[in-house]
């Protein structure tokens, strides 16, 4: 696993994906930080985190798009799958590489915190709560992106499909918002979608609630999609 992790980290930087990802992430989070935190004259970083949800939807597919699709296209997966490593090693090596890069990006928060602490008192509980919420949200989204990357040979297809799926996840709760007081079927649909809703769970954190079930939900999603990826790779060998 560590060999794959290290190679993948190297590849992020040699291919330039890491620079694009980090630049865009820092730029946009910086704008939100300036607009929603500094200009409003508060040291509460929650509004910034709430806005970042949308940005993550678009940025995570860039991280995950080529992780497995490129291997398949260049036939380098033959090298990995015939090496004495398990499928979990391969998938998790790639997964943690992407997650590491995401954490590097997200940790810019601490730079903002230093700036804030020069201007006033930072509320560390909310800052850390939001930080971990976003971390686990990213962990779940990366697993989804990695799974989609394993389904195609085309990087662009992988990126676009991941974005669409993540946007659907985001919009799903709004789509069923009217169903709360509807008929039986509508009610069931509403319950299911809101139970599985990523957005409302995430927004909870920005409202100052540190919800452990939500953290467990994100981790479960991450595990589940990594499991799907492994099974998908396994199935490809049997087809």
């Amino acid at each position, binding site marked *: 696993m*560590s*060999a*794959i992790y*290290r*190679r993948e980290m*190297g*590849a992020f930087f*040699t*291919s330039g994906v890491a620079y694009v990802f980090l630049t865009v992430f820092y730029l946009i989070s910086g704008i939100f930080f300036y607009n929603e935190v500094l200009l409003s004259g508060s040291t509460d970083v929650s509004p910034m985190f709430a806005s970042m949800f949308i940005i993550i939807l678009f940025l995570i597919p860039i991280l995950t798009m080529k992780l497995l699709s490129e291997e398949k296209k*260049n*036939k*380098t*997966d*033959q*090298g*990995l*799958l*015939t*090496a*004495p*490593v*398990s499928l979990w090693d391969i998938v998790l090596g790639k997964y943690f590489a992407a997650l590491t890069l995401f954490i590097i990006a997200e940790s810019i928060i601490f730079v903002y915190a230093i700036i804030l602490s020069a201007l006033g008192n930072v509320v560390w509980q909310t800052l850390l709560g939001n930080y971990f919420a976003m971390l686990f949200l990213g962990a779940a989204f990366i697993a989804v992106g990695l799974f989609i990357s394993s389904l195609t040979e085309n990087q662009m297809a992988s990126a676009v499909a991941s974005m669409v799926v993540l946007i659907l996840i985001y919009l799903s709760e709004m789509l069923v918002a009217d169903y709360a007081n509807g008929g039986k079927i509508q009610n069931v649909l509403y319950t299911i979608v809101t139970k599985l809703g990523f957005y409302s769970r995430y927004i909870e954190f920005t409202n100052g609630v540190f919800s452990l079930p939500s953290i467990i939900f994100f981790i479960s999603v991450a595990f589940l999609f990594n499991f799907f990826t492994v099974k998908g790779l396994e199935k490809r*060998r*049997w*087809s």
Partner: protein
Amino acid sequence: MIEVRNVTKKYGDKLAVDNVSFKVEKGEILGFLGPNGAGKSTTMNMLTGYISSTSGQILIDDVDILEDPKKAKANIGYLPEIPPIYVDMTVDAYLNFIYDLKKCKLPRKSHLADVCNLCKISDVRKRIIKNLSKGYRQRVGLAQALINNPPVLILDEPTVGLDPTQIIEIRTLIKKLGKRHTVILSSHILPEIQAVCDRIIIINKGKLAADGKADEIAKNITNEHKMTVRIEGPTHTADDKRVIAEALKKISGVTYVRADMEREKGIYDFDIETDGKCDIRRDLNKLCTEKGWNILMLQLSDLTLEDIFLKITMNEGIKVESDSDTPEISLSIKDGELIASTGSAEEEKTETAEETESENAEDSENNGGEE
């Protein structure tokens, strides 16, 4: 060392490999021969655990590749058809990655240096693979397979894209490796297989078509089986050609006659094939005496590996006399299935024969034969 038992692979309805069994002993160099799409790569991919077999069993050093893949794969070095190299890495970084991936315990620096020396890539170690030529990439692929000194090496067309001197180098290298490793090598370049391999397996349409040593496969096909005669007729025109060919066909035991090109003015060569059961040379002589023709030349053709390969893969079918002197060769050739079913067998044979002809470069002036 490697044992393949009744392995079958289906892609949906398409049968890619059909009930193939063979065994490779330690230190053997086995050549895998077959036309495009015969199932060579599929078989190799199954041997290395990249894909699984639909049914059957593959044992690498007595370890089932599907039951204990990690242990079995640790014994294999694999060079696929397209080397699995990451083009944006340097050769050194890539080989170090493979070293880590295979959890190699050998001393890193000296082992990598050894492998690079063997594959002659020491001078490009600092370069990015993207900028290397195809030949170098192929050698990096080979180096990757050699890391951790696996006892089994599986090489899928290792000399593709190399220039002639490199091909010779790689062949010598493979021969050298064959002393310490068990090697399976696939190719459709026949001289290569003949030069390097101890044993040959010919695979066609997913089935094992022949298994044995190259010279023995050729030796087993009796000389009486195929011959070339040059007969001088009375008129020295194309009429002779037709008349003689028809007469030859009537000799009992003759299965196939093809009038070849005009070698001398008005005199033609005929390729004759027999069923292999009887020697027709005496009958042939008698026929010519009766008709007043002169036999100017009679040559028994030794089948080259190329002939065997073409025959087997074109489904033309050779009947092989089982030779009791060499019992260790198991030669099983599936013959005649297609011919029996199509009905237009004669036409197909002509086509095959012409293709055979065009393979032989020295016969380039051939004006095409007709029966």
